[in-house]
């Protein structure tokens, strides 16, 4: 295990200090020597960026925390995808005695990401054996959380938290989790029903609704857990930390966009993307440092002219991005001759978001609602499409692989509208049904045919454009 920890950029001091906890957690999680060997093989063949390995190390730390919370903390909150990132960051500042984290992504990376697919597939299969079939109204992140709960892999928490802010799946899962384990849940709702064409104007009604819903969710949490409300300063710290994290992540995209070719292998960015969507307050400084290191590593490669893909390779974007934990599936994109400049639109900060300046609303909950609404993809299909059209210009994209998680309520529905809108603007687009969390959905070969054909098509169009 020590060798694997070194591959994950653990320092000697950290290994010495953390090894008893790690061993205890892995034993509890039934991680075997065979799994550890598989992990070493993964990190021998993939993830050449040190920063990515650090991020994977952080996922392992969070997994260890999850496995040991019952021994080390007084209470626990399990967040379910899609939840409230700032809330999870905040809990560390306001109530460090409470364990609080996104169990689905922590399990996804802590098992499958580090030790290979069979470990995370287990939770998907347990869920299926217990009535939650693949694709049946739940995304596979929810399926994974359900598998972990129904199998008794995790101890029962004191509270579940999730959002209805983009779809109803996590809220339905929370109801189910409460039914199975008896622990209560708190959710918040939002409204995504604004009038077509409202963008970019932000209306008071949805902002106020978001703020009230979040307030209700936090008050429910405080009541259920019997804890004091966080102070304004703690909220400010959580918001500031999260904003910095996003800005550092945005800098990475700026580097990718400016680069002539692709400096690193495609799988490297995948574990980092999810850390932005589901972060943890305790590791915020380490995340920030890893993001900065990642950008520096990219710049160093560019300065030395080290490219994995050269400048002639088509530049593309996606919707959900490639598989998050299986590097062989991520690598297929570049093997097929596609430079995935922006893996997922949701994680790209548009220039107008940064140029938007000061918040319009005074209250911090309104401001959180305002920030969410500013990011077009959570508002409605129109904004999702608008965002993509702008992104193709800013990132100089040659095409878009519209690849949503196929049962995603938000992203799968507008897939064909998006394809049509892109094609009307002369941007080649292909719809690819996939699942970034469940590696069983596609073999590398099934992906390869579609991606290779798309790559050939985009190259042909580029050649003809040049010759005209």
């Amino acid at each position, binding site marked *: 295990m020590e060798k694997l920890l070194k591959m994950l950029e653990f320092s000697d001091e950290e290994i010495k200090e953390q090894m008893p906890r790690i061993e205890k957690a892995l034993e509890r999680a039934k991680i075997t020597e065979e799994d550890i060997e598989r992990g070493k093989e993964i990190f021998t063949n993939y993830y050449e960026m040190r920063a990515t390995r650090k991020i994977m190390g952080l996922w392992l730390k969070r997994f260890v925390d999850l496995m040991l919370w019952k021994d080390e903390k007084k209470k626990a909150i399990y967040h379910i995808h899609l939840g409230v990132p700032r809330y999870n960051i905040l809990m560390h500042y306001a109530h460090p005695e409470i364990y609080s984290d996104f169990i689905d992504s922590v399990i996804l990376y802590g098992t499958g990401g580090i030790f290979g697919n069979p470990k995370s597939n287990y939770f998907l299969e347990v869920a299926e054996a217990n009535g939650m079939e693949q694709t049946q109204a739940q995304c596979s992140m929810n399926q994974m959380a359900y598998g972990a709960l129904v199998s008794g892999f995790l101890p029962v928490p004191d509270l579940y938290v999730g959002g209805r802010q983009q779809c109803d799946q996590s809220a339905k899962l929370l109801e189910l989790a409460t039914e199975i384990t008896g622990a209560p849940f708190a959710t918040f709702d939002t409204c995504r029903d604004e009038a077509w064409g409202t963008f970019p104007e932000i209306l008071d009604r949805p902002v106020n609704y978001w703020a009230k819903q979040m307030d209700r969710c936090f008050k429910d949490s405080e009541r259920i857990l019997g804890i004091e409300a966080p102070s304004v300063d703690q909220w400010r710290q959580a918001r500031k930390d999260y904003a910095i994290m996003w800005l550092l992540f945005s800098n990475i995209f700026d580097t990718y966009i400016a680069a002539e070719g692709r400096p690193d292998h495609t799988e490297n960015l995948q574990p980092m993307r999810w850390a932005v969507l589901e972060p943890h307050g305790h590791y915020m400084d380490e995340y920030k440092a890893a993001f900065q290191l990642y950008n520096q590593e990219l710049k160093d490669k560019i300065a030395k002219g080290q490219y994995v893909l050269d400048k002639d390779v088509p530049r593309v974007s996606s919707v959900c991005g490639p598989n998050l934990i299986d590097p062989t599936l991520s690598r297929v994109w570049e093997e097929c001759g596609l430079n995935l400049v922006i893996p997922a639109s949701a994680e790209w900060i548009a220039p107008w978001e940064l140029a938007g300046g000061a918040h319009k609303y005074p209250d911090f909950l309104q401001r959180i609602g305002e920030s969410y609404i500013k990011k077009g993809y959570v508002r409605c299909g129109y904004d999702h499409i608008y965002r993509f059209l702008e992104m193709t210009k800013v990132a100089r994209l040659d095409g878009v692989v519209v690849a949503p998680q*196929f049962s995603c309520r938000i992203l799968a529905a507008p897939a*064909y509208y998006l*394809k049509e809108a892109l*094609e009307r603007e002369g941007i*080649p687009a*292909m*719809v*690819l*049904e996939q699942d970034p969390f469940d590696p069983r*959905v*596609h073999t590398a*070969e099934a992906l*390869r*045919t*579609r991606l*290779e*054909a*798309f790559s*050939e*098509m985009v190259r*042909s*169009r580029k050649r*003809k454009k040049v010759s005209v």
Partner: protein
Amino acid sequence: MLVAGIDVGAATAKALIMGGGSVLSYFIMPTGASVKQAAEVVIEESLRRAGVQRSNLDYVLATGWGRHGVGFANKTATEIWCHAKGIHFLIPGASSIIDIGGQDSKAINIDDEGDVVNFIMNDKCAAGTGRFCEVMAVILHLKIEDLGEIALSSDKPVSISSTCTVFAETELVAHRAEGESVENLTAGVMQSIAKRVAGMALQIRPTEKAVFTGGVAKNIGVKKFLEKELGLELIVPEEPQITGALGAALVAKTELEKSS
């Protein structure tokens, strides 16, 4: 200049030998359990039929689902690209291709140079493929090659789910128990495949001069229902199963010309 195109699909493997820009021979057989073995057999038999030695081949290009398993190929290309090139050669001016193979179906739009401008492929599911026909033929105790003709005698095709082979099987058994005629049952199956494929193909808006390829294109029943669903007349090449291998041979020829 002697080139070969090999198309190893999920159901059948095809090889085609081309010399001096003309087709010399081709051979089709079930892929079976081994891609490598199927590729060896189809190339050897095609060479035998063409009366040429393997050592005389200047370039081999492999396509299809099993293309990466063809160890002796000089290069690989996707079946989407090869179908486009093959159809452009066979039917100049063709603008759309509907291909229904053993395990997948696809629709491709091509330009006047035979380059792909848009395409769509089925994902994850065998409904709307040759496999669907095979499963249904077994249930109906019919030979797969007879399905099309039988379907043409139907006066009222039964309604069958177009989204899932497993559900469709259950529905078919239920209709049979209700006493529906074999003609109506068979036509229901054909209509179901056509609806599934048309639903997918219409997303890329196939245009006039559309060509129907793949093993299922030999089924007159599916062709009829597909034409109705698409609102288009479909052209079926003389041998619709070899267009991928033909395209592979044409791409091989281009590659060879580029390198010489």
